[in-house]
């Protein structure tokens, strides 16, 4: 009786495995198996706050959202006006400082893109993305 149950469970698991493999092959380019950002490039609010004055907060959201409210002391740097805003950011940047980029929420992509461009194009080191973004900042303020 017990061996029959085990056999049935294994059979069901095997049957479930077949479409699973099929889907993994079919969607191999579409399914992300890894986080797009390595964990070392993400930073929590607690970590970033602990760096104190060595942190440069970068707001990657559109101008209107930045103007409404932003993290105190944050510098606006978005891709809408990258060429215009980058020189302004670079005047406050210093090699010993850590750059923490944020956008609206965990799911937004703007902070990742801005961080990537700062690393790849401007070749800056110590550039991080804030986990949870502005949404998380607001929660911690309550």
């Amino acid at each position, binding site marked *: 009786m017990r061996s029959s149950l085990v056999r049935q469970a294994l059979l069901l698991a095997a049957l479930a495995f077949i479409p699973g493999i099929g889907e993994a092959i079919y969607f191999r380019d579409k399914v992300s198996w890894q986080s797009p950002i390595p964990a070392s490039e993400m930073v929590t609010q607690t970590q970033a706050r602990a760096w104190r004055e060595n942190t440069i907060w970068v707001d990657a959201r559109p101008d209107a959202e930045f103007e409404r409210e932003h993290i105190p002391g944050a510098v606006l740097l978005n891709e809408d006006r990258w060429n215009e805003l980058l020189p302004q950011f670079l005047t406050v940047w*210093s090699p010993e400082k850590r750059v923490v980029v944020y956008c609206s929420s965990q799911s937004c992509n703007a902070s990742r893109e801005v961080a990537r461009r700062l690393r790849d194009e401007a070749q800056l080191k110590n550039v991080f993305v804030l986990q949870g973004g502005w949404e998380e900042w607001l929660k911690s303020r309550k």
Partner: protein
Amino acid sequence: MRTRIFAFTLSIFLCAIARAELKWEQTSVELHPAPADKEAVGHFKYQNTGSQPVRFKSVHTSCGCTAAQSQKDEVPPGEKGEITATFKIGDRTGTQVKSVTVQTDDPVNATTVLTLKAVIPQQLEINPTFVFWGQGEALKPKSIVVRASKDFPVKQLKVTSSSPDFQTKVEETGNGQFKIDIQPSDTSRNMAATLTIQPEGSSKTFYAMARVTNAAATQ
């Protein structure tokens, strides 16, 4: 009992035929904007092929740079329409993928994700876009490499510094590649310049930055 079975069968049949169904002509669009374009617009066409009206509950975009608009709030049976997604290019480069999530009261496809892919041509690849010197660092020039795309060949490059404190020298190194040497006049004080890079015959201007910082450089 027979009446109940009949009523049950009839209700299932009615449910099956009286349904709303929004059919999309395409759920992904690839756009190739010209270098001077400021925005890229994608049109996602649909038709209600069901026998019930379909109501749009919400239309959300994945990025503040994309705005999506539905022509109507409700689509009567048989009617066609479209959702327009406008992607603001700004100073973005390369391939950009943005999504639009559409929620309707259509029980078959309550949520549809529309994908807008914009391939923004990159005329020039500038590497790096920023060079800096630390306080008191040796007065040696630092270089920026500029590579022109095969689709936009560049014969000459004009580089202008916004500050006389930084001098530039452009050298063509072949295969559509240029080297810009930047030399600060002094590294004892904090100073900065924006370098304007203008390829000959192009309406687009590119930028790079140079700066002498307060701290020691590690570049």
